[in-house]
């Protein structure tokens, strides 16, 4: 079906398609539309989920974990401070190996109080053992939310998964959307360690150092295995529904001398900057990092790299920039831009490329190059 919808509505539609048994959620700007829409679907009978209204995000995640441990498929959505309030439970979900799927509408963290897009909320949870993916269009938000369940629930993964979309910029922007009928693309969830009263087991007991260490290695092993599962699921999605996805999205990169690397909606608008630069004779390409955990394997050799970072590790550097430096030999020009919803246009992005200074960092609008 063809329609026009916001990013938030697209996520709710995807959830309705996959039909999780349990949704537990707490509203927060700019995510509220997702859980409102899901609640409306449950209320009008078009979604047969148990909807658990809770008093906080911490409880939302705790309820999802509890439901997941019984073998139920679960979903929640949050943003910003709501995500941070879940922090303890995020570690718990990964450690308990439950495939909770969550939409996180990326928003800055206060103070100063700010409701606009930034990636710091998700970045601050990057070491919790969750898979993280960042989307750039309404269609991609929808498609990725559907794929998220199959990836997270795969027997080689069994880890929670966070679908990130930029607050307002994508959550509240209407774009064309083609919905699908998932059919057997999403098989029934089989959780091997689900509670079974016929075969009682202990959950969350005191765990000694040796076993604990092995559990942690097992998370990392699954995170590595997730790379192949992601590729397989994305390939099957492409075969069935005709839309291709991967760990990264490349635009005019084949013969590019300079790569503009970004995440989320910046990574889509960067393609317009690339077209403008190409018309000037600058051989630029756009590389959008879609999967953030597991972090993609990038080959940037022989190219100049400009990274637009929408999240910062104070005293260290741009989170995406440092991730790229840690995994490649690139010496990027790191542009910190868009924090707290700062307006950044494709014209600005083209300027970052024209005025690049490899190895240096610029805070856009604060110490702008003339």
């Amino acid at each position, binding site marked *: 079906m063809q329609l026009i919808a916001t990013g938030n509505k697209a996520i709710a539609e995807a959830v309705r398609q996959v039909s999780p048994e349990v949704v537990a959620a707490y509203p927060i700007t700019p995510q509220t539309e997702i859980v409102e829409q899901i609640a409306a679907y449950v209320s009008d009978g078009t979604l047969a989920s148990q909807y658990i209204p809770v008093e906080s995000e911490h409880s939302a995640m705790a309820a999802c974990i509890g439901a997941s441990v019984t073998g139920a498929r679960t979903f929640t959505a949050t943003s910003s401070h709501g995500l941070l309030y879940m922090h303890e439970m995020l570690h718990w979900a990964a450690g308990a190996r439950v495939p909770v799927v969550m939409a996180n509408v990326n928003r800055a963290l206060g103070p100063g109080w700010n409701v606009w897009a930034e990636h710091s909320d998700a970045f601050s949870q990057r070491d919790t053992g969750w898979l993280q993916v960042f989307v750039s269009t309404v269609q991609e938000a929808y498609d990725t939310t559907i794929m998220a369940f199959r990836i997270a629930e795969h027997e080689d993964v069994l880890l929670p998964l966070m679908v990130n979309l930029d607050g307002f*910029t994508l959550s509240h*922007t*209407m774009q064309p959307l083609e919905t699908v009928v998932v059919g057997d693309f999403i098989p029934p969830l089989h959780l091997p360690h689900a509670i079974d009263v016929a075969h009682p087991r202990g959950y969350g007991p005191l765990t000694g150092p040796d076993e604990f260490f092995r559990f942690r290695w097992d998370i990392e092993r699954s995170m590595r295995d997730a790379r192949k599962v992601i590729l397989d699921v994305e390939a099957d999605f492409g075969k069935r529904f005709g839309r291709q996805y991967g760990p990264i999205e490349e635009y005019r990169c084949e013969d590019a001398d300079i790569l503009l690397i970004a995440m989320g909606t910046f990574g889509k*608008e960067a393609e317009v900057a690339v077209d403008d630069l190409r018309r000037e004779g600058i051989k630029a390409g756009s590389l959008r990092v879609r999967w953030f955990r597991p972090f993609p394997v990038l080959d940037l050799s022989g190219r100049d790299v400009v990274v637009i970072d929408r999240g910062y590790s104070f005293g260290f550097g741009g989170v995406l920039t440092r991730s790229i430096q840690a995994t490649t030999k690139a010496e990027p020009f790191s542009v910190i831009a868009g924090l707290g919803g700062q307006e950044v*246009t494709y014209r600005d992005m083209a300027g970052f490329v024209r005025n690049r200074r490899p190895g240096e960092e610029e805070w856009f609008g604060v110490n702008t190059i003339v």
Partner: protein
Amino acid sequence: MYEIRIHSRGGQGGVTAARLLADAAFRGGKYATASPFYGAERRGAPVVSFVRIDDRPIKVYSQIQHPDMVVVLDPSIMEAVDIFQGLKSEGEILLNSSHPITFEGYRTHCVDLTGIAIARTLVVAGSPVVNTPLLGALAKVGIISLDAARAAIRGMFSDNRNVQAAEDAYGELVL
């Protein structure tokens, strides 16, 4: 790409107007995006929404710098906001006004959306609903078809007076 900036006041339905317009353009076979700029949400505050219409998928999310058309749902907003900012030299202005207003250098269309809403008793929480008649005016100007406007309105509102109000605006706006 055709770019439209809508100026309104919080509570006036400017965001919904942008969504209706994008929906109607989409029903007319175009690619369209509607992206409201949200500030501190409060009734009466100036609000701006953006609509882009194109024959190709639209990749731009940033605010519209050089609109082809500016829509003003409350002309008193011009005392607080520069509605001409970045407007293309050949750009057009569509005003919700009961009396004709002209701006030198710009094609300006005036239609009394508030009057139409009141005549159709489309008033919600004390505010006349101007966004559904606006769709009729935009159809008259040629941005969308009247059929697409009707379909988009019916997709969002069950009360047929909204469609009638759009038809009223279509009939009243003189080009």
